[in-house]
């Protein structure tokens, strides 16, 4: 490994520091993800590997749901593509903040680390993206995410039903923390979130009432995302600066 300059070492340390609160949040949320994984029949080692490689709350949750349903491989791939589609946009936004001479390896390394939170802290830094800063944040938070997942799979057994029931909403709490603040700032997003709640509820009920077995939870997510986000994009195209929003 190349020796780090003082400047790089400082950025790396700052990344480690900013990674700590992310790691704490990840651990609790990953634990509830582990409970979902346990219900899907995953072992702790499998959950750990999935979390190290994917480190995506919504994507992993949707993926584990698809695995539990023994979905076809293409459906799993499409589900992950759709639930992680926001990382495409974040990756696009990050590419505008990279210095042009950044190597392919750093692009792959930082890209691999994109999550809502790591993207957020990376973009919040001034100037061009410093890959070592992002690596610091990743080094603290991603193992915590994976350990939380593995522990959720193992300890989901030991914990009383009431505690499991309580922890199972942590993930949804985190989703709310991601979608509600932008919904407050942007009226279109706010209306879209509300409409999504209603459509999700209605479509879920319809699937149950008419016994539409093909209309699984994962399929509903894909269908509603394409329809509602597509409709919003046609009716309310974004202004230029919003592409760079976190």
């Amino acid at each position: 490994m190349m020796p780090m300059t003082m400047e790089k070492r400082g950025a790396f340390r700052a990344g480690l520091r900013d990674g700590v609160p992310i790691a704490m949040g990840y651990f609790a949320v990953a634990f509830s993800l582990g409970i979902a994984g346990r219900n899907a029949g995953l072992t702790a080692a499998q959950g750990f590997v999935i979390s190290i490689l994917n480190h995506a709350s919504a994507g992993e949750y949707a993926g584990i749901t698809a695995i539990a349903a023994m979905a076809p491989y293409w459906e799993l791939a499409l589900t992950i593509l759709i639930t992680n589609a926001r990382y495409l946009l974040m990756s696009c936004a990050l590419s505008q903040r990279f210095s042009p001479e950044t190597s392919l390896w750093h692009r792959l390394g930082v890209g691999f680390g994109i999550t809502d939170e790591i993207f957020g802290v990376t973009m919040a830094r001034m100037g061009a993206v410093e890959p070592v800063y992002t690596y610091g944040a990743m080094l603290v938070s991603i193992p915590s995410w994976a350990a939380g997942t593995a522990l959720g799979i193992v300890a989901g057994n030991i914990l009383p039903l009431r505690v499991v029931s309580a922890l199972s909403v942590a993930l949804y709490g985190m989703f709310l923390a991601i979608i509600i603040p932008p919904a407050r700032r942007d009226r279109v997003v706010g209306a879209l979130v509300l409409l999504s709640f209603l459509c999700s509820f209605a479509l879920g009920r319809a699937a149950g009432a008419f016994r539409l077995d093909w209309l699984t939870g994962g399929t509903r997510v894909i269908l509603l995302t394409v329809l509602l986000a597509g409709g919003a994009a046609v009716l309310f195209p974004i202004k230029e600066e919003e592409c760079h929003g976190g």
Partner: protein
Amino acid sequence: MGGNIYIYIAVMSLVSFAVRVLPLTLIRGQIKSRFIRSFLYYVPYVTLAVMTFPAIVETTQSPVAGALALAAGVGLAFAGAGLFPVAVCCCLVVLAVEGVLVA
């Protein structure tokens, strides 16, 4: 085709990796299509909202506890609370409500 856990893990991880690194490595300039940029902008909100409701109400032992956790989560997030506090408070609401209702 489906059913092998290791193929499932490989498919998940490859798609996750591709989604994250492809724009960063391939697209050096800005995406031109306003529709695609708008679509991508709206995607996370719809996806996460659809996944959250009504699932949050159905995952708990008592639907009332889930509904109150949803209300608390929306309220706290609206007030600007971060990821960790919102997630923990939702859990505590369920723990408290089910302690009264389910016990």
